[in-house]
């Protein structure tokens, strides 16, 4: 009984939902549409509540690290302090996140750190260009030439000073790259469709959290 509840019930629910969601898209039948949109609403409400699980889970993992005094545990303690400050100030305003202190922290603490981590990519891209763009094989030549053309096409200065170059860049983007782009669009979708059909046959267990 309990294995049924543990494994089969979640898998069956997932399978039925996939079926309903797909049927609603193909068959014009009003009750099906109502049912499908109700299920979608439910999923969004569940997802909203799931955020809390993620937060509790993350906090528990950090608290565990602090308890065991793992290396750098004091940084985890600092993390929890920051978390509490953000939550408290977030609820202080008229609506959520409207309080000036919260907005101040988002602007001067969260934003600079977040965007600086992202900005580190710029360094990595220079290093990658330096290391990886060396002519070795046929495909590396093609990669290099195509990247150079698009880079020049994108470079603001080139458009202004050498407009004659622009058609070449547009050609690469409009013709071969767009063609391959279409192919890639199709194959990613194929992967996703295959995945959903596996779930329809109750074969995709990790998606419903069936681990054992």
């Amino acid at each position: 009984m309990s294995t049924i509840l543990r494994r089969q019930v979640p898998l069956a629910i997932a399978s039925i939902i996939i079926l309903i969601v797909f049927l609603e898209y193909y068959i014009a039948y009003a009750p099906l549409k109502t049912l499908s949109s109700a299920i979608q609403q439910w999923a969004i409400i569940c997802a909203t509540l799931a955020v809390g699980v993620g937060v509790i889970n993350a906090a528990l993992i950090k608290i565990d690290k602090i308890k065991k005094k793992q290396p750098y545990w004091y940084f985890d303690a600092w993390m929890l302090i920051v978390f509490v400050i953000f939550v408290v100030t977030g609820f202080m305003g008229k609506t959520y996140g409207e309080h000036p202190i919260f907005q101040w922290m988002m602007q001067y603490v969260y934003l600079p750190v977040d965007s600086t981590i992202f900005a580190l990519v710029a360094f990595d891209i220079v290093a990658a260009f330096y290391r990886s763009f060396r002519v070795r094989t046929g495909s590396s030549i093609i990669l290099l030439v195509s990247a150079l053309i698009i880079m020049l096409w994108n470079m603001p200065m080139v458009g202004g000073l050498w407009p004659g170059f622009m058609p070449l860049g547009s050609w690469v983007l409009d013709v071969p790259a767009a063609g391959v782009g279409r192919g890639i669009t199709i194959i990613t979708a194929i992967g996703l469709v295959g995945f959903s059909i596996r779930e329809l046959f109750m074969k995709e267990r990790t998606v419903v959290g069936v681990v054992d």
Partner: protein
Amino acid sequence: MFVNGHVIGMIMFIVTTIAIYWYMERVKKGAEIFVRPLPAMVAIDEAMGRCAETGKPAHFTPGFSVGGLNHPIMGPGVMAGLTILNRVAESAAKHGVRLIVSLAQPEAVALATEIVSNAYKLENQPVPIGAVRFISSEQYPYTAGVLSTLMEERPAANLMFGYFWSEALQFAQAGNYLGCMQLAGTDSIGNLPFLVLTCDYCLIGEELYAAAGSVEKSPAMLGSLRGQDILRLMAVISMILIWLGSNFGLSWITDLFRA
């Protein structure tokens, strides 16, 4: 009865479903389906061997997905990455290598812990302490966490199978700096080029899902891969038909596909 404009999609869906079911049953009855070999999966043993030689750990991450495993585009990629973790952990345990797994999805922690400890127990190896680490479910905190892990632990192999955005290049460059052997795979088309360029072997797009199948060899995976190939074949044939039809005055073909 049917929704206008969605009929062709429905037919393709039904045909694919039937094909997957058919081939799943065929595999169960003993039919063999050949899956083309993927060098990135073969190289996992080599990477672990290198870790064992140098006595350094190996790092694995299945990438980042907005809002956890349930994201319709990113989630499947991460889950495919976790199925590859199975194979990676087995190989790590066999070579006696300390494996570090960095995660961005709190709900994947239990799953990954179980995969890793099972693999080590099977080889009668002690399960490494603190092997599975949850960092953060937001993208850039996660990126920062993985980067500092890499810098601290100095692994000899950096394995990235899953879904990645801009952090792909950051991890790959950090691994490059540390002289890691790098294996990667992603279906995130936007950041695939970086991984293809900077890693030793890379799984492209759909190969990420097939990799799990080529390891598992379960009827469901093999049948599904064959079914997907049928869908692919349908897409190719329809493209050719539509193009021929539109050029030789048979516009009814295109109209048929618009149904």
